C-alpha cells in the first residue's frame, strides 16, 4: 500500500519535471523571433531623424536564425559557363549560346537570339520552353531554383532564382525574355551553377537594429525613401574564388540605391 503511494507521488514529480524540461527545450530551440509594432514605429522615427523615410509597415516583423551554405561553382567564369551550355545546345541542334550571339562580362552572360520575325510564338508556351531549355542545357545544374513569370504587353519575362530552405538568393538570376516571335534573350547574372554544401545555423540580427546602425553611420544629407526590404541570401563577387559562403542578408532598396546587409552581424556588403 505504501509503495503504491510512493509511486503515485513519483509519477506526479516526474510529470512536473518533464513539463519543465519540455518548456526549457522548446524555448532553447526557438529560432524565430518577432518585433513588436512599437519598436517598428520607433525605428521609423529614428530613421526619419537621420533623413531616411520608411513606412513602418514595410519593415519585416519577424526574423529567424538561418542556415548558411557553401557554394562551389561548377563553371569558373561566365565565359566557361556559356561555352559549356553551347556544347550541349549543339547536341540538340539549337543555336542558344552560340559564340557569335553570346556576350560575356566578368559577371554576366547574355545570349541574343536571331529572331525570325515572320514566325509567331504563343507566349503561353514561354514558361514551358524556358523550362525545357534550362533542363536540356543544364542551366540548373546541381541547384535548387524557382521561377517567376512577368507578363508585359507582347513580352514575357521569366526569372529563375536559386532558392535554399525557402530563401531566395538575391544576387544571382537567370532571365529568359520572349516576344511574339519567340525567345529573344537569355541573360545570366552571377549564374555559374553551384554545388551547395550545408553549413551551420547562424543567428541573425533584427532588421530594426541594422536600420538604426545604418542611419546613424550613413549621415545622409538628402532624404532617402526606403521602398522595400527583403530577406534572402547573397553570393557577391566570386572572381578567382573556388567556393564562397552563401550569407543571409537584408536587402534594402531606396529610390536610388540597393544596400545589402549581412543579417548575422549587420555589416554593409
Amino acid at each position, binding site marked *: 500500500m505504501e509503495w*503504491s503511494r510512493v509511486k*503515485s507521488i513519483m509519477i506526479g514529480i*516526474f510529470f512536473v519535471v518533464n513539463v519543465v524540461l*519540455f518548456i526549457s*527545450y522548446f524555448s532553447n530551440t526557438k529560432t524565430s523571433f518577432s518585433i513588436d509594432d512599437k519598436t517598428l514605429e520607433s525605428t521609423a522615427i529614428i530613421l526619419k531623424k537621420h533623413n531616411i523615410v520608411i513606412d513602418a509597415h514595410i519593415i519585416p516583423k519577424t526574423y529567424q536564425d538561418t542556415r548558411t551554405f557553401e557554394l562551389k561553382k561548377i563553371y569558373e567564369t561566365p565565359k566557361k559557363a556559356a561555352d559549356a551550355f553551347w556544347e550541349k545546345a549543339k547536341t540538340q541542334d539549337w543555336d542558344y549560346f552560340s559564340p557569335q550571339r553570346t556576350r560575356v562580362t566578368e559577371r554576366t552572360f547574355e545570349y541574343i537570339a536571331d529572331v525570325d520575325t515572320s514566325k509567331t510564338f504563343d507566349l503561353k508556351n514561354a514558361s514551358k520552353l524556358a523550362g525545357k531549355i534550362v533542363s536540356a542545357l543544364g542551366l540548373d545544374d546541381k541547384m535548387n531554383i524557382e521561377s517567376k513569370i512577368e507578363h508585359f504587353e507582347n513580352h514575357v519575362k521569366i526569372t529563375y532564382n536559386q532558392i535554399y530552405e525557402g530563401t531566395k538568393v538575391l544576387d544571382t538570376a537567370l532571365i529568359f525574355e520572349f516576344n511574339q516571335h519567340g525567345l529573344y534573350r537569355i541573360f545570366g547574372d552571377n549564374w555559374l551553377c553551384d554545388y551547395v554544401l550545408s553549413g551551420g545555423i*547562424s*543567428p541573425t540580427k533584427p532588421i530594426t537594429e541594422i536600420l538604426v546602425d545604418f542611419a546613424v553611420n550613413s549621415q545622409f544629407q538628402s532624404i532617402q525613401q526606403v521602398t522595400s526590404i527583403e530577406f534572402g541570401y547573397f553570393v*557577391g563577387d566570386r572572381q*578567382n574564388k573556388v567556393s564562397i559562403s552563401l550569407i543571409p542578408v537584408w536587402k534594402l532598396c531606396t529610390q536610388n540605391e540597393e544596400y545589402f546587409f549581412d543579417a548575422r552581424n549587420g555589416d554593409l556588403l
Partner: protein
Amino acid sequence: MYKERIKSAILVLLVLNCLQLMGQIWFNNKKLWPSGYNFFNSIQNTKLTNALKSLFPLSDGKQIDKPYLSTVRPSKIVLSSGNARDVYHPGEEKYDSAYLQVDRIFESLTSSQSVRTSTMSVSDFNTLLQGKSVYLSFGFSLDPSSLSEAFKKNFTSVLPGSFNVSDIIITGDTLTKESIVCMLDSSANSAVKFFVDYRGDEIIKYIDSSTFGKSQDKVFAFELKLDRPLKDAKIVQRILLDSRVLLSIEDEEFETFEVLNPLESDTSSFDNIVSALGYTPSVLRKSVAQDGTASYVENSATIRISPAGVVEYSAVETEKGIPLQNGMYAPYLAVSQVTKIAEQIFSAAGVEHLTDLHLVSDLKASEDEYIIKMNYTYGGLPVISQLNAEGVKNALYAKVERGYITAFKLLIRTFGKPGENAVLGPCITGGTKIGALDMLVQQIGREETLEIQEVFKCYNSQTDISSPVWGFKIKGMEDIVLIKN
C-alpha cells in the same frame, strides 16, 4: 495489482522521458547552435559563474604562463674563463644549469635592501667578456617590468623605467666575494653595474669548472677589432660587426630535422583556427581561392588561412581588434597573450604542442603600439622562416595597439624526425678555407661597408629537411641573409 503495473510502467516511461529530454537539452540540440558555439563557454560566462569567480579568485588575470617565459629567455649564455669559452642554448642541460646560477644571483640582487651600483662605459662592459664571466644575450631588449616577469624577480626596484636591458654580464670578485651584475642598454649605449653580496667566488668556480678542457674557438667581434672602422682609409672595409657578435672559428655538427606543415593536406581545420582567434566561422563571409587559401571576412576584420600554413588576421580599426585580457597594455602581457593565441591555433590545427618560439623583437614600454616578432627554435637555435610569397619574415608577427591585437600572422610549422647530422663550417677562418663571412660579402657584392648587427647559427626552414646555416642580420636589410657554409 493490474493498476500497480500500469503505474510502474508510467513511472518508468516518465523517468526515461526525463532522461531523454535532459540529454536533448544538454547535447542534441547543439545542431541548432551556430557552429563555434560552446555550451560550456556560455555557462562560464553566466552572471552566477562570474559572481562565484569574484568570490573565489583563482587567478589575478595577470598570470604569466610557461609559453611566455620560454619565449623571453636569453637566446644564448656564453661562459668565458679568459682562455676558454663555451656557448649554451635553450633546451641544453648546461643552459639550465647556468640559468639556475644566474637566477640565484638575480634573487639576491632584487631582494637586497641596498645594492651598490655604478655606471660603466660600453667598452668596459665588453672588456668583461674577455675575463671570467657569464654573458646572457637576449637578442632583444626588455624593459624592467618585462625583465621582472621573465625572471620572476622585481627588477623595477633596481632599474630605472627607461633602462631597456639587452645584454647582461655576471662575474665575481674573489677578494670581496661579491657577485657583479652588469646590464647593458644597447640602444642608449649605457651600462650599469651592481655589486651583489652573493658568493662571487662561487660563480668564478662555476665558470672555471664549466669551461675546463674547452678551447677559445669562439671570439667576439671587438676582440678581432671588426667592430670599428679601419685606420687605413685606403683599404675598402667590406664589413663592420656589432661588438658582441660571437664568431665561431671551428666546424660544428648539428642535427638536421624534417619541417612539416600541418595545413598542407588538412584544410578541414580552417574553421577551427578561426574559432581559436575568437571568431565564429559561421558569421563571417568565407571564400576559398584557386590555391586553396580561405578568407573569412567581416567589415571590421579579415582572417586569411593558406595551405602554405600561414594564418593571418588583420583588423580594420584598432578598437575592432582582438582585445588584450583585462585591457592590460604592458608588453609582456601582450607577448603572453599572443603566444597563447598561437598555442590555440596549433591546437585547432590538430597539433598537440606549440613549436618552441623565441622572441626577436624588443619588449619596451610604450603607450600606443608594440610589434611582436618571434622565430621558432630547434635545439635552442633559431629556425628562420622567410616565405616571401606569403610576406612571412618571422614565424609569428603581431601588432598590438592600445590594448588590441590589430594584426597577427603565424606560420604554422612543426618539426619532425631528426635526420643525419650536418656540419656547419666556421664563420671566419685564418687559413685558406672560406668562412661564412667571406661568402656573405661575395654573395651581397656591395661596394659599401656592410654593417652586420647580428651573426648567429640557425636553421633554414625553407626546405623539407632543415639544415644548419649562418644567419646575418644586416643594417638596412629586412630579411635575414642565410649562408650555408
